[in-house]
């Protein structure tokens, strides 16, 4: 592998890792704070991707369109939808046994997948890359790198920075951190716990949906994309340590690199690499890399 190829793969790995983090961060917080194993989290990502596809013509006819306008509308919609979903279903799950949560959220996956099939169909669709970002940046005389992928990495980085700022500097962030390490404590502090839950859930939903939206032009949108992301994100959450945002970031980047380079270096066993990495890490550290609390 020459240096330029290596660089390209690194960029790919980085971008993939950041996208995974956006999905996994919500998953880890929902588990850490509310104690809910949310199997439907992959569906949120899928919903985002399909929103990017389905909203584009609607937004275009309403306000003249544009990828970024679609993105904005999609984020607003998903925050609202996440908020409603928490109110309608998830708020009943907090006191339940983990396996009951698994059963209910599995039911939700089925419902979301079929609604998707009913509303949009089962075909594979592509989403257009916005004009401004459609080009490529030269890396050497023959190699180039698509601008859009760089954009994805950049916007993810901005979001990661914003998230860490919220956690470190705001009152909301303080409550979330406290909740992830010790749920009982937050309840005893007199914080409006159901509001905190609703905010975290809506944010988690929106982050996953946003990841789906920005990934859509690169990955295309297809049935089953939610399931793939779900399993990989669970791997990320568990490697990072449940409830730990830093852990999720490190683990997401790690998985991004293992997966990307696994496909290049050992194409025959690419699928195994991620799980092998996870098994090894958990045998070394049975509670993940960064245990919360």
């Amino acid at each position, binding site marked *: 592998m020459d240096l330029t190829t290596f660089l390209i793969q690194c960029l790919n790995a980085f971008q993939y890792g950041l996208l995974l983090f956006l999905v996994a961060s919500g998953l880890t917080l929902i*588990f850490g704070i509310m104690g809910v*194993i949310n*199997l439907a989290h992959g569906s949120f990502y899928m919903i985002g991707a399909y929103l990017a596809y389905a909203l584009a013509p609607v937004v275009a006819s309403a306000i003249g369109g544009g990828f970024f306008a679609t993105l904005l509308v999609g984020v607003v919609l998903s925050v609202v939808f996440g908020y409603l979903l928490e109110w309608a*279903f998830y708020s*009943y799950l907090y006191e*339940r*046994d*983990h*396996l*009951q949560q*698994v*059963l*209910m959220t*599995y*039911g*939700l*996956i*089925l*419902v979301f*997948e*079929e*609604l998707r*099939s*009913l509303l949009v169909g089962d075909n594979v669709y592509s989403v257009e890359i916005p004009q401004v970002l459609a080009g490529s940046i030269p890396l050497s005389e023959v190699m180039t790198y698509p601008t859009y992928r760089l954009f994805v990495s950049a916007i993810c980085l901005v979001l990661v920075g914003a998230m860490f700022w919220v956690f470190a500097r705001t009152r909301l962030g303080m409550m979330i951190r406290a909740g992830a390490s010790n749920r009982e404590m937050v309840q005893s502090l007199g914080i409006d716990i159901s509001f905190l839950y609703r905010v975290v859930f809506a944010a988690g939903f929106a982050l996953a949906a946003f990841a789906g939206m920005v990934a859509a032009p690169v990955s295309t949108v297809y049935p089953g994309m939610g*399931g793939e992301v779900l*399993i990989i994100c*669970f*791997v990320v959450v*568990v490697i990072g340590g*449940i409830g730990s945002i830093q852990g999720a970031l490190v683990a997401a980047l790690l998985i991004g690199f293992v997966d990307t380079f696994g496909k290049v270096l050992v194409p*025959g*066993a*690419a*699928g*195994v690499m991620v*799980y*092998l990495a*996870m*098994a090894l890490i*958990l*045998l070394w550290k*049975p*509670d*993940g890399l960064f245990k919360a609390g």
Partner: protein
Amino acid sequence: MDKSKGIFVALVFMALALYPFVGGGGYGIDIVTKIMIYAILALSLELLVGTTGLVCFGQAAFFGIGAYAAVLFSGEQGAASILWLLPASMLAAAVYALAVGALSLRTRGVYFIMVTLAFAQMAYFVVHDTPLGGGTDGIYLYFRPTLGEKLKFDEPLVMYLFSLGTLVFVFGFLTVLLNSRFGRALAGIRVNEQRMRGTGFTTYPYKLAAFVISGGLAGLGGALFAIKDGFVNPELMSWHLSGAALMMIILGGLGHLRGALIGAFAFLLLQEFFKAEAIFGEFAKHWHLGMGIVIIAAVAVLPRGLVGLPEVLRKRLAGSGGGESRIGGLKSAQGGAK
């Protein structure tokens, strides 16, 4: 298990034995055979989840390894005898379970769920990506095995009755096992492992033994599945099947062997129902929607699964208390007699 429950299970098995002779058509026999095989898978998982409290999210790997072993051991030369083929397939799955269990039992809780998933995914990709398992296309079974001269497993009726026999055997075996000292120790581990250790039980060998037995039984189910279909592919090891097996036992009601049985039938019959074009016409291809809604409803009204249904009905008829408190009350009584 008290008397009425024992009678219930006996009646179910008798009804299954009579079914092919009283109006079960070819299609029905095929479906019920399939369900009975999945019920074996669900029972094997119940030993881990419901009895020992180990939530394994990779049960399909054992099922799949049993299935692949049955096909690979059969060879291309002629029909094998089922008398060695099934034990050999079970052994293959059990050996794999021994390796996976020895490692993954170092972790706990959600981490355990994910490690078992990770090992199952590895097995999936090994058959998916290597020539050993024929890749995504899978492999065919050249000759279905036989039992003596007469019984050939190409015949659906033979397959049906043999699957039923195996299911009854597995159910009986687990019933005896759970009432033994070993089974009681597993139940103790589920309730309070720390207390068991304080009392003097080294719990690891118990959990590992449960894991290996469970893997072997799932492998038995997988081998039957391969013989029935005459074909295996990597989907048998996918996390979707592991998930479905979990859904079956949760839906049926954890902590009860008959829950696994009821859950497998309910889950798969519901699937058949929502898939039926005669009822739903065009809409039948969206059968997942119906399944999803039923599952969500089941969580809402049946926190103990279907085995808790008679109790819920009894209380509702008696008309005591409000809905939520009643469900809460049932939950605290969970994990009673087997």
